């Protein structure tokens, strides 16, 4: 693959927090421009640490022992400050309120806050605030307090604060984990829309059934190592291995695994989304329609 299509390159990343055993070991993967890239694995597998390594917080903020290289948008994360890196890679946390400055009393101020720390001009800031809020569907709520928003709105605001900087890559660490179904849908739809616009998105996520509908590629982490990596379908159809590390594949994929012998299905033919499953089983049951 031509290297100018690669926006994230992680090579041999090994990391331990100060005084601890390694939480990441020999991590190696590439993310292409415009990809929706999923990170799955049980809690404690190293997903959050990996997300923080992508914008330099690990190791610059946390210290610890670090080996290997992480390059994002052409910048080696060890050779640039987190502030410089944050112009190219935005990080969205699980808890939106952890991301808020805590000093803004209005939604638009919150979006401005991050930019003002980076020295943007006022006119440019106003334009970007408006664009970012539109992209996440929060236009009209500029004057609200961030703390009066619903969970899904808060998480979309957190995404907007990152978007306003217009980074090349957006990294999200379980952005839907704390949300109710409406909030989850809002955030997932926002992610989808941003990806369609060309943003590269890397997301750690437990909502596998959702990830199945839009991720291009996935890495599965377990105990700090990459267990496997590949196109979404290739990863999510490895039923037994996923279950061994405590990750539930999509229910419809699991169903097809149970019926594999009976229906004469090879793993590569397992459906990973509801729509695929409906098509497959309608076809299989075709002769029995009532």
């Amino acid at each position, binding site marked *: 693959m031509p290297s100018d299509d690669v926006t994230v390159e992680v090579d041999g990343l090994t990391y331990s927090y100060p005084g601890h055993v390694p939480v990441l070991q020999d991590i190696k993967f590439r993310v292409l421009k415009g990809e929706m890239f999923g990170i799955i694995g*049980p*809690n*404690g597998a190293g997903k959050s640490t990996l997300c923080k390594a992508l914008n330099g917080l690990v190791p610059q903020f946390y210290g610890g022992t670090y080996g290997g290289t992480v390059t994002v948008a052409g910048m080696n994360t060890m050779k640039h400050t987190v502030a410089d890196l944050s112009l190219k890679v935005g990080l969205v946390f*699980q808890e939106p309120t952890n991301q808020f400055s805590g000093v803004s009393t209005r939604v638009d101020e919150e979006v401005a806050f991050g930019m003002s720390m980076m020295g943007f001009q006022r006119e440019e800031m106003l334009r970007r605030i408006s664009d970012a809020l539109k992209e996440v569907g929060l236009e009209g709520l500029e004057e609200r307090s961030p703390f009066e928003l*619903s*969970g899904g709105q808060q998480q979309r605001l957190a995404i907007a604060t990152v978007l306003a900087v217009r980074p090349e890559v957006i990294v999200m660490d379980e952005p839907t*984990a*704390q949300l*109710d*179904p*409406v*909030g*989850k*849908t809002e955030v997932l739809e926002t992610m989808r829309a941003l990806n369609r616009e060309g943003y590269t998105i890397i997301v750690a996520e*437990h909502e596998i*059934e959702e990830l199945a509908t839009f991720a291009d590629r996935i890495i599965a982490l377990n105990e700090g190592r990459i267990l496997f990596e590949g196109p979404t379908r290739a990863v999510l159809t490895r039923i037994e291995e996923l279950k061994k590390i*405590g*990750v*539930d594949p*999509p*229910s*419809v994929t*699991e*169903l097809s695994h*149970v*019926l594999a012998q*009976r*229906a004469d299905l090879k793993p590569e033919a397992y459906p990973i989304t*509801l729509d695929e*499953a*409906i098509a497959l*089983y*309608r076809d*299989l*049951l*075709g002769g*029995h*329609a*009532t």
Partner: protein
Amino acid sequence: MSLIDVRDVWYSYGGGVMALNGVSLEITPGETIALIGQNGGGKTTLAKQFNGLLKPTRGQVLVKGVDTRNVPPNRLALTVGYVFQNPSHQIFSSKVWEEVAFGPKNAGLRPDQIEERTRWAIDAVRLSGFELTHPYDLDYGKMKLLTIASIMSMKPEVYCLDEPTTGQDHQGRRRVAELIRSLNKNGATVIAITHDMKFVAEVAKRIVLVAGGKIIADGQTRDIFEKTEILAEAQIRPPQITQLARALADHGVAPNLMTVKELADSIAGMI
């Protein structure tokens, strides 16, 4: 007799806005109930009526026939145990053992009873080996299990679990599901607030759907998952398997199947 009897309860946090608008509900011993609905709809406000953490602005809640307004919450806690959504709202000891022993100690039990119940609860949530660990050194999943254990040691008749699966990974969710099944098998009534419909299908026989401060559906889990219009209105999607089963209904598949096994058995018999 019903264990918890909620009679036309209205509740306001003050400021005039009603968080509950005339809710009635009866809970009988041994039930497993999922309280579902979007945030802000009134689930937690309703659940907190069950053990007197909140008392009705209007209407009545009877726990084993006694009006919650006439009993102090610490007495009610012996009957209805409440596990908060956020573990840090509940945990205050510096060791796992002490956290779990606190309830029975506070209730004035004998040392050997305290010892026995603490041991039992810690073993049941599989935290043996972590007795001397600081609760905040546990990972999130284990911390949630600890908060359940610290309620189990009180041996309440009813467990009220506020979002026990939120923030958990799949394994964590499975552990909570197993725990609920085992508590229920031993006679406990379990009420869980949750957004996870796969989890609901696995553990709850009954669903109470709350929206806008009202109960908009109440019935057997399987039946509620068939009420597509009400669910759509509440923006809740049934488990993926149920959605697939429904889409295959015109091919003779029962539209109310809920688990991989049920649907696999059904399809296997047809191909």
